[in-house]
């Protein structure tokens, strides 16, 4: 029978160098000593019953709340207090009293188990102080850094805010400018249009005259060709030698058909031939054409290509979505040249002078250059267009910039914007197999060290720390899907550190990653602890 009667401990506490003896039942913290008075019956701390004091710590559980057995394992819900002089006092569950495992560094939990415990409180205290000191230093420095970060972030924020305000102002002006230039452009384009139309009309009239001339010449030439016997008349039989003129396309041009073409006459002279010519000119094959020029072949249907329909290679703007991803401002600048190119694409070039190579042999048909007045109008209009487009582009860029800054400003960068500096940065950690990359407020990814494609471990979701400080955890969600599993996700645990660095990654569950990340931004204001070593004593 193991009898563990009332065991009163003598606690030798060292208080500022003066040893003090404090008597109280085993396992009772000083704060509760008052409830355990040897001279009086003991009332369970929940008030449920009162028992003789010799039943306190008698290794039998009498109180439902376990309060009668602070120093034994008798109560399932009791707790034991170790003073741990030199280190931190603590409570352990009663079930750890005399279980053969040293839990209290002052060995007081193992007073009857035979476990060989050594008092390690001093050592632990020393180590803890070292750690605390180190932590305190880190916290201190980290907190200073944090102040800078806050400062910078605030400055940056203000700058951005005022920049946005300025830009909004500029934008308003730009808007007005664009509208003004639009009017200028439209005003300039009207006379340009009229002048160009005039020019075009003149040229078309000229072209018609030339075409008529040519037709006449051709007719005369044909007459001569048909008039085989050079008698000044084209006869039915002479016409019949040109079977291609057969109107019913049966292969032969009969006499009657030929006569029909000739308006019923047996023969026609040059002036009458004028009425025959329109009926045969489309089908007529020149007798010289087989050997000689193919000009006549090209002639019959000269398809006009109006100059304003000539197209340049156009890049389809729709296929290039406007870049919405977070692109830093620097990158924006780099993109400008390219953007210029795109900006022009949706404008149809109005350059009238462009010639296509196929038309070179028709030089005589090319539109003559604009006259000086027209050209001046065109130049003026073009300048108005260019000015307008430039202004419009500047406006769009301004919009982009405002949007980007507003997006950045919309992130929750912490109560004092201390996390702002992480925005648009990335931090890497290389393990034996992978390179992990954390881009705060953007995404987490993993890439095999020795080749292979990148896997998205989640994109920025939200702060998800405990209620009292949600800024201790970041959650990245909806990464690449796992087979038969969820989408990958990553929790980033933030701890105070001088440096901003990813310290570890792990995958506690399949496809659920945990990343540890130090940053000054979570360093708390250091409590004013005095790191000088002196024992913590409760009195």
């Amino acid at each position: 029978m193991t009898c563990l009667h009332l065991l009163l401990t003598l606690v030798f506490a060292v208080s500022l160098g003066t040893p003090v003896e404090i008597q109280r039942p085993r396992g009772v913290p000083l704060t509760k000593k008052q409830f355990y008075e040897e001279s009086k019956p003991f009332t369970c701390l929940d008030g449920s019953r009162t028992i003789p004091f010799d039943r306190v710590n008698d290794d039998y559980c009498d109180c439902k709340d376990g309060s009668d057995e602070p120093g034994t394992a008798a109560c399932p819900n009791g707790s034991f207090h170790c003073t741990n002089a030199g280190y931190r006092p603590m409570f352990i569950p009663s079930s750890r009293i005399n279980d053969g495992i040293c839990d209290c560094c002052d060995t007081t939990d193992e007073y009857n188990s035979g476990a060989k415990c050594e008092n390690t409180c001093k050592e632990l205290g020393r180590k803890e102080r070292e750690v605390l000191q180190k932590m305190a230093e880190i916290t201190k420095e980290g907190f200073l850094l944090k102040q800078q970060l806050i400062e910078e972030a605030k400055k940056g924020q203000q700058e951005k805010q005022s920049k946005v305000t300025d830009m909004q102002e500029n934008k308003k002006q730009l808007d007005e400018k664009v509208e003004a230039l639009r009017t200028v452009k439209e005003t300039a384009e009207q006379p340009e249009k009229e002048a160009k139309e005039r020019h075009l009309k003149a040229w078309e009239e000229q072209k018609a005259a030339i075409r008529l001339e040519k037709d006449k010449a051709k007719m005369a030439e044909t007459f001569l060709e048909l008039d085989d016997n050079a008698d000044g008349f084209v006869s039915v039989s002479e016409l019949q030698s040109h079977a291609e003129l057969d109107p019913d396309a049966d292969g032969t041009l009969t006499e009657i058909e030929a006569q029909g073409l000739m308006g019923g006459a047996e023969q026609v002279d040059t002036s009458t031939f004028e009425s025959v010519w329109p009926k045969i000119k489309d089908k007529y094959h020149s007798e010289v054409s087989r050997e000689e020029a193919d000009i006549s072949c090209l002639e019959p249907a000269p398809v006009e290509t109006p100059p304003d329909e000539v197209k340049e290679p156009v890049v389809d703007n729709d296929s290039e979505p406007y870049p919405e991803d977070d692109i830093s401002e620097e990158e924006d600048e780099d993109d400008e040249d390219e953007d210029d190119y795109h900006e022009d694409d949706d404008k149809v070039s109005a350059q009238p002078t462009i010639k296509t190579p196929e038309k070179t042999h028709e030089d005589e048909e090319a539109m003559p250059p604009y006259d000086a007045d027209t050209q001046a109008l065109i130049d003026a209009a073009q300048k108005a267009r260019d000015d307008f487009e430039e202004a419009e582009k500047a406006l769009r860029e301004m919009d982009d910039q405002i949007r980007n800054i507003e997006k950045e400003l919309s992130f929750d960068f912490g109560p004092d914007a201390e996390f702002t500096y992480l925005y648009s940065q990335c931090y890497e950690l290389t393990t034996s197999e992978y390179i992990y990359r954390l881009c705060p407020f953007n995404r987490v990814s993993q890439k095999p060290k020795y080749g292979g494609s990148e896997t998205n471990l989640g994109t920025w979701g939200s702060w998800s720390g405990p209620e009292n400080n949600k800024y201790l955890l970041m959650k990245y969600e909806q990464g690449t899907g796992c087979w038969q599993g969820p989408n990958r996700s990553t929790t980033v645990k933030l701890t105070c550190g001088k440096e901003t660095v990813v310290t570890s990654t792990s995958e506690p569950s399949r496809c659920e990653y945990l990343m540890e990340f130090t940053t000054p931004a979570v360093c708390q204001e250091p409590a004013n602890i005095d790191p000088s070593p002196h024992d913590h004593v409760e009195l």
Partner: protein
Amino acid sequence: SFGLWGITLLMGLLSVFFVCLFFSSAFAVDRGNFKTCDQSAFCKRQRAFKPGQSPYRALLETLELSDSRLTLQLINDNNKVHLLLELYRLQGNMTRVKINELKPLKPRFEVPDVLIAEPPTDLSVLSKDDNGVVLSLGAESQRLIVSARPFRLDIMEGPEVLLSLNSRGLLAFEHLRLRKDTNKEEDGLWEETFKSHTDTKPNGPTSISLDFSLPGVEHVYGIPEHADDLKLKTTDGGDPYRLYNLDVFQYELYNPMALYGSIPLMLAHNTQRTMGIFWLNAAETWVDISSNTAGKTVFGKMLDFVQGSSEKPQTDVRWISESGIIDVFIMLGPKPSDVFSQYASLTGTQSFPPLASLGYHQCRWNYNDQEDVKSVDQGFDQHDIPYDFIWLDIEHADGKRYFTWDPHKFSQPKEMLQGLMDKKRKMVAIVDPHIKVDSGYKIHNEITSKDFYVKNKDGGNYEGWCWPGNSGYPDFTNPEMRAWWASMFAYDQYEGSMENLFTWNDMNEPSVFNGPEVTMHKDALHGKWEHRDIHNMYGLYVQMATAEGQIQRSGGAERPFVLTRAFFAGSQRFGAVWTGDNAAEWDHLKISIPMCLSLGLVGVSFCGADVGGFFKNPSTELLVRWYQTGAYQPFFRAHAHLDTTRREPWLFGPENTALIREAVRQRYALLPYWYQLFFQAYRTGMPVMRPLWVDYPKDTATFTIDDEFLIGSDLLVHPVTEEGSRGVTAYLPGAGEVWYDVHTFQKHNGAQNLYIPVTLSSIPVFQRGGSIIPRKDRVRRSSACMENDPYTLYVALSPKKFAEGKLYIDDGHSFNYDTKKEFIHRSLTFANNALTSSNLCPDCNFLTSSWIEKVLILGASKPSKVVLKMNGKETPVDFEFDSSMSVLTLRKPGMNAGDDWTLLLQ
């Protein structure tokens, strides 16, 4: 432990074919991967025979009788092949019937290493004439009648036939023959193809079959492992129950498909008698069950009874095996406990496990690294949840080379094990039987140089795909191989191992990812025997050799702990079994009860299911309910698939952590009872977790119950296994008996269906009136920490104010209980208002520092005085009486748990 599809992760590059094969299976078994009877040539052939006149005839003139054995030749009149029948009477009311070819072309396989003894006893001929022979089976006027033409056997007691063999004429023995003598080349006689696999059958057809008729029997049980109800169903119109150890990926419930293990023992039960049929054959086996009452309504049966017209209810059973001989043990009971001890006398009892292994086990595929192990260990302390074992799955080894450690994740295994040891905790690491073919791997090289691998049909080393990729399979049927394997567990061989490291044998069906039905080719060779002959025993041998290794590493001093997935008759002697790769579904929680009950009935008491479900993520409610159920099942381990989210008990909010903590604490408080029951199982073969009918064999209401169960005789558990349940209806058996709710001490009468309203914290458990259960109510962080703690005795009085129980105590881990009789075994009896502890083993010798801190007497009346009588002295004992529940609490009587004493209520 994982089924098949994880393979794709490992072998993606290696075999597109597999990827297609395995990806195609969604979240249920791909039945197409496994044979039906129709796809198994011998089963189809045998099943085509219908009941009728047997072609077999006994040649009575060949009868020879020795003291214990009768032999007799049988002839098949169709082909004139002679068989030799041997009949033995065995001690303990058993009969053994062996039938082999009289002169086989070559020896046929007879199962070794399963029987621990075959105790024959006298057999005498009572009478003999031209029609047959009557043999005496000893007591109770039991006779065995051998009828000659046609051949049949009937076992009678008085005028009643208990059991008949070949009464339906289904004895069929395919004799060995030469291929050239085969008349017609029937399909599947000399070659058989399933999916892409061809089984060359150099021995041709070798199957055997025999029928058994059980007059008066309507309930048969056993023949695990199947994910099905406790009571076996008739198989007419469907497939027979199949016994063929297979790694079935995402198995389906409620069907007769084969699973990871096979125990060819069937129990037959009615109100008068319990019997057993043990079919000792390790080849692929199918069991058909039919019944003349199946399908009849209760009313129909009653009508038959009233009219007196009906035929007697009868169950007919037919066993079909692919090779070997007919070797059947018929156990005549008559009580359930008799059948258990009869079977135990043949195949041995449950190994007595180390006490810690009855605690809670925390497992996951996989704990990622040492740091992970450490933080999970700390998590249990932070949340004040006890546990004893943390487990490491295949990822702990270096490239799935078992007996090694991953050099990055587990670089300091001893440091890790020491950390656990400092907390009196233990670890299990997996060691599977497939060995990576890798010339840089010591185990592979030694097996190769000793020529210990299983051979393929052409004589080369058999190779197949498993977790490590290309793998060899050691021939565990070879005793030299097993001895060598055991020696690999020596501390100087198994680097990084320590005394608190134990073993898990998974994939030992054996699982071969690219083999037929995901297992080994039947024409692979184990010495001179084909894999066909030994298949169902492979897993048993793996666990046998592993357990032996653990015993040897301590010089025979310490008890082993080995968990196995595959098993066979006799596996109970080597450790624990779990129900394989279940899923986080309510039905899987429910099925864990009949699956473990079935195993308990056939000797394997140390059974459990993966708490939480292996595949998929359990809902919080399911997880809590599973802990509550698992806490009351013998092997209590949480396990989870690699792809599931973490589910350590504290990850579901403080309320659920508290619920799980409470379930685990109930388990730990009851460890003295569990331990005592396992001692009893080890000694007698009585199952630890049992169906109600085992203790209430005459109560027909209990015969099909498998949603509640007994632990020992004294605790009845009806776990909540329905989602959103608000109440359960538990059947409390025993007319005139009482049961006490263990939480409220409320008393309920037996022989009633009791509706119990439940909340999420409820685990309906009742203690039988008439029992005494010792508990250790001071639950600590592991079982070892509780070693010296005092006991509380829960005395639940019967209506006659009587109760009894037992207390067993030893060191919890060594063989000293056996080799040095170092244990305490006490009988606790409450009668005539006196509770007495008396010694059940006076020549035993063990000292404990545990004492009796409290005695609760349920159903008591208030005494005026309580006195402790001990060593001739009387001392008063303080007490309290709660009249509302009639509970008398004796305060701190204080005697040592090993002492003689009496507490008198006056």
